């Protein structure tokens, strides 16, 4: 059964491995000079004391200008990779058996079909897990110097737990769609239509709400000491705003009326009695967030996998 599954899907496996190899090569070519600049120019020290001195700020800016382009773009676009794997590997997995009639061959061998589908799911999901881990390691090495905060979206989305969750859910969605629709193309479309909105909704709507955010306000008008430290640390900042003398949030309209557009210096803030405030998730919550998001995707993937098994068992 293992050999059979490998023989049947080795094309997809080799394709995925080749893609990861190419990506690894690109990461290496782009990442090696970046890492040597990172170590040689003292970027790490600057990042820890973010923007304290003007020379540090310049150093960081030029480092980013020089190296950030490709990795940042990759970090954006590789978000689609789990979906692509779900559509190209997951959706046809069972749909093609129906389309080509080979389910009749497969399920009349002396392997009961429940075992057949369980083993198949296990092998495919294990392979996808391996791919997720490799991708996570490559991107961690590549993106870390540029995005020092693990809570940054570029780093968070490629941490091994959530990335695994995305991959297994995308593939499980594809397999389930194929089992239900029995045709590859509709199954591919369905995978896209289910996984993409889900993934986006979780990242942009649900993720900030996993826990109640913390709000901090500078104690003294015009002094951003507290909020700056929070914003520059590894915290996940959701919102920056100004608080008036009575402690209420300054609306955007009032802010514009009072201060006009553009940057505002601390003296102006002090003059109006305004204090800066920041709403954020502390860096210490990072693993809680990883675990919650992984549980959402992993749990759904497990549910979908069980539905696939149920569907195959009651296939008749």
């Amino acid at each position, binding site marked *: 059964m293992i*050999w059979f599954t490998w023989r049947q899907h080795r094309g997809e496996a080799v394709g995925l491995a080749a893609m990861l190899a190419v990506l690894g090569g690109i990461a290496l070519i782009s990442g090696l000079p970046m890492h040597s600049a990172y170590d040689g120019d003292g970027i790490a020290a600057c990042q820890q004391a973010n923007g304290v001195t003007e020379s540090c700020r310049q150093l960081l800016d030029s480092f980013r200008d020089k190296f950030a382009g490709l990795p940042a773009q990759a970090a954006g676009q590789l978000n689609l990779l789990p979906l692509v794997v779900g559509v190209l590997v997951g959706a046809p997995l069972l749909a093609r058996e129906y389309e080509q009639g080979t389910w*009749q061959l497969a399920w009349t061998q002396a392997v009961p079909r429940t075992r057949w589908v369980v083993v198949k799911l296990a092998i495919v999901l294990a392979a996808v897990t391996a791919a997720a881990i490799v991708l996570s390691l490559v991107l961690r090495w590549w993106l870390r110097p540029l995005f020092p905060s693990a809570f940054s979206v570029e780093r968070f989305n490629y941490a091994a737990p959530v990335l695994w969750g995305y991959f297994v859910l995308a593939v499980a969605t594809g397999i389930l769609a194929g089992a239900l629709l029995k045709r590859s193309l509709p199954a591919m479309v369905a995978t896209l239509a289910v996984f993409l909105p889900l993934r986006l909704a979780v990242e942009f709507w649900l993720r900030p709400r996993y826990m109640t955010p913390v709000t901090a306000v500078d104690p003294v008008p015009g002094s951003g000491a507290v909020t700056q430290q929070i914003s520059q640390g590894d915290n996940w900042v959701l919102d920056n705003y100004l608080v008036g003398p009575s402690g209420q949030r300054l609306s955007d309209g009032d802010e514009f009326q009072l201060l006009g557009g553009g940057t505002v210096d601390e003296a102006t803030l002090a003059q109006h009695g305004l204090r800066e405030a920041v709403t954020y998730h502390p860096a210490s919550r990072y693993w809680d967030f990883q675990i919650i998001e992984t549980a959402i995707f992993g749990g759904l993937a497990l549910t979908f996998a069980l539905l696939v098994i149920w569907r195959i068992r009651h296939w008749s």
Partner: protein
Amino acid sequence: MSAPVLETSGLGRRYRSVWALRDCDLALPAGRVIALVGPNGAGKTTFLRLTVGLLRPTEGEITVLGSPAGRESADSLADIGFVAQDHPLYKRFLVRDLLRTGAALNLRWDQALAENRLEALEIPLDQRVGTLSGGQHAQVALTLALAKRPKLLVLDEPVAGLDPLARLTFLQALMGAVAEEELTVLLSSHILPELERVCDYLIVLTGGRVQLAGEIDELLSAHRLLIGPSEPTMASAPGVIHVSRGDRQANAIVRTDGGPVLAGWESRPIGLEELVLAYLHRTPPIPSTR
């Protein structure tokens, strides 16, 4: 007499509101080559899929080789070889890969049998399945089913879509295999002439219902072709299956069960094709919705 290889009682299968098969009561003897004959949409594929466990009955029971069909057990599955309609195979595999798959997924795999058969048919093991000719494709599918060493071999329209030569070779190969093994073969077809040579048991299925089932020899001796004057009352006489009228005379196919025939009628023995056609004519497909 040995236990029936396949037994059904009240077997029925419905797809949504349409019955594909109903009230099917059969007991098929072991060691025969059984032909399942009927027009397209008669329920042949449904019956065969129920037999091999790919479908489960909506009602009634079906027992194959002593255990209920459709039970998920490796032992039951190992006893049945199945070649589905159009002989589906993994097209991207090499022939060799299919054999390895068969070996990996079965309990009694006979690799030597498979290799010898394919060698005799001059089908190279290193050829990609997708590039085989139709006849070779069918032969590979049959080889996979035979190398399982099944007790029951089920073939759904095995020769449909093959050219006459490939059809002949296929049936010869099948008969060769049957002669060597203790094997029961159940095959469906709507091509009649070939069946006469290879089959010894017949089931006629139309509109989802069994019209006729029995040993072909017995069925042939139980029916006569009567030729006589064209009388309108003829069709309602007992035992009459089908009447075709000419200008002056009528041909009637009658189930006499060896008894005497009507006086004044010429009585002739009947051929398999005439017999099957009579039963196919007799019963217009019943609207099977309910």
